[in-house]
């Protein structure tokens, strides 16, 4: 028997598999397809203070080994998440859930975190300072170390729940941002969010997405995620939730070797709705293949080969 269980910021996870925010809604679509209690946890749809419609359509584009999305943080707003989504979720999910928070100002992040901090079902707060599809918010907080530190400090002050900061890969030096988030009180880091991309349709000679640009996800970005998790692991002592292009158990092991304590699965849920239970099922055999008895042994395992 192998051990799949890990702990993320002090909360045990039966296994490290976590569907990523924005690819899993509030859980029910998937609860119709399988018992979502098999998951480590899942990260809920990014939540803002006010309801948001998001961007005009088209919001989705095909890419080689991946996809672009420019949904633009469509969500019902934190009040409805608390009054409607969380009670509905209680009926199909009995584990602590990860709440994903977005905002357009420091005050908004604080307001949403305060409201979610009071919810017993919420295990972790994951602060998205890396959404590439909104203007004047999201990624603008995650691309400057000063702004990232300010948001982290502000939300740290209003919650005692484990605080994860979700980082953008669209930066010159992700390590410096990771460092300031740790210094500002983050309990962990989630990385990576999507990479900013674009497609143009030769037939119409126009951008495919109405928003022109969107976030690239899918297997195409796995190597970028592995590299960034590896670099950040070297620089921080707080746990990392790794994500980006994960589609199979092998990818999970790779990200954990790079330094991830847990692993989120994003775009793959959309094309293969049973991806997460399949990965969880595949993990023990995949671990045995590589002589792994306990996943905890391999977290950051690739670093022991570093040159002194």
């Amino acid at each position, binding site marked *: 028997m192998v051990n799949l269980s890990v702990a993320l910021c002090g909360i045990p996870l039966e296994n490290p598999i976590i569907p990523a925010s*924005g*690819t*899993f*809604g509030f859980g029910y*679509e*998937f609860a*119709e*397809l399988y018992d979502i209690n098999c998951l480590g946890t899942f990260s809920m*749809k990014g939540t803002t203070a006010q309801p948001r*419609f*998001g961007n005009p*359509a*088209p*919001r*989705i*584009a*095909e*890419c*080689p*080994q*991946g*996809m672009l*999305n420019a*949904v633009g943080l*469509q969500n019902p707003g934190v009040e409805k998440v608390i009054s409607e989504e969380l009670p509905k979720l209680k009926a199909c999910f009995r584990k602590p859930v990860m709440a994903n928070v977005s905002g357009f100002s420091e005050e908004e992040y604080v307001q949403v975190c305060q409201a979610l901090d009071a919810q017993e079902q919420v295990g972790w707060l994951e602060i998205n300072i890396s959404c590439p599809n909104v203007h004047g918010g999201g990624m603008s907080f995650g691309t400057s170390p000063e702004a990232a530190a300010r948001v982290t400090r502000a939300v740290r002050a209003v919650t005692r729940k484990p605080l994860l900061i979700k980082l953008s890969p669209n930066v010159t030096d992700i390590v410096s941002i990771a460092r300031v988030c740790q210094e500002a009180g983050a309990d962990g880091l989630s990385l990576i969010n999507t990479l900013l991309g674009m497609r143009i349709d030769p037939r119409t000679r126009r951008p495919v997405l109405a928003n022109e640009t969107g976030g690239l996800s*899918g*297997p195409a970005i796995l190597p970028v995620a592995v590299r960034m998790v590896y670099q950040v692991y070297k620089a921080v002592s707080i746990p990392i939730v790794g994500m980006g292009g994960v589609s199979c158990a092998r990818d999970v092991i790779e990200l954990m070797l790079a330094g991830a304590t847990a692993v989120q699965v994003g*775009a793959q*849920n*959309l*094309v*293969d*709705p*049973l991806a997460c239970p399949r990965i969880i099922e595949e993990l023990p055999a995949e671990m045995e293949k590589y002589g792994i008895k306990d996943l905890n042994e391999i977290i950051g395992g690739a670093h022991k080969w570093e040159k002194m």
Partner: protein
Amino acid sequence: MVKQVFLKIEQNQPLTDTVCQMVLSGDVSGITAPGQFVNLKLDGLYLRRPISVCDLAEGRLTLVYKVVGQGTEQMRTLPVGTILDVLVGLGNGYDTSKSGPRPLLIGGGVGIPPLYYLCRRLLAEDREPTVILGFNTAAEQFLAAEFAALGVPVIVTTVDGSAGKKGFVTDGMAGVDYSYFYTCGPMPMFRAIDKVAATGGQFSFEERMGCGFGACMGCTCKTKYGNKRICRDGPVLEREEIVW
């Protein structure tokens, strides 16, 4: 009910230069209403491709699709016997309970296929449907004979007048007595129908989708009753809720 199933291609042949018909066999029990769609996984493409259900029988599914891009181009080349990974039972589908005695079915171009299974269901419910099919030219016509074979009145319109009545589907609607309408086709056609239609009706929309089952919010539109996901709360919307 949404289900992931593996279906075998039994037939795959062209109906016109750009429109093809694919018959699949396997567990299609997840499909419950006309107007629903399936989402196909194709080799080398990341996102699945949503295709409307044209006809359904026990263990048998017919898709009629237009070759417009990478996905449908690949579909055209798939040989009989190929096994496809398919999500079935997607979307709300048409609600036949609202049809009244004489529903009108209006299809434009590649929007026509889902109306075929709808027509069969309405006939099974003892309704008397009339069908209007709009094409650009006679050469682009498909499924007209199949509708006629169901024994329903079929009015064909072509933009260039090379078959049927010259003009648009709205020209075909003039003089038809109907109790309700169901339509699928391009947006300009929808707007024209909305201007002239005398009754309530249902429109089936198309949008680029991520997942096809309601998770990604990739295909959300605004309606009078709030945001709806075309893939999950649609693709069929009622006339009175649509924001034009």
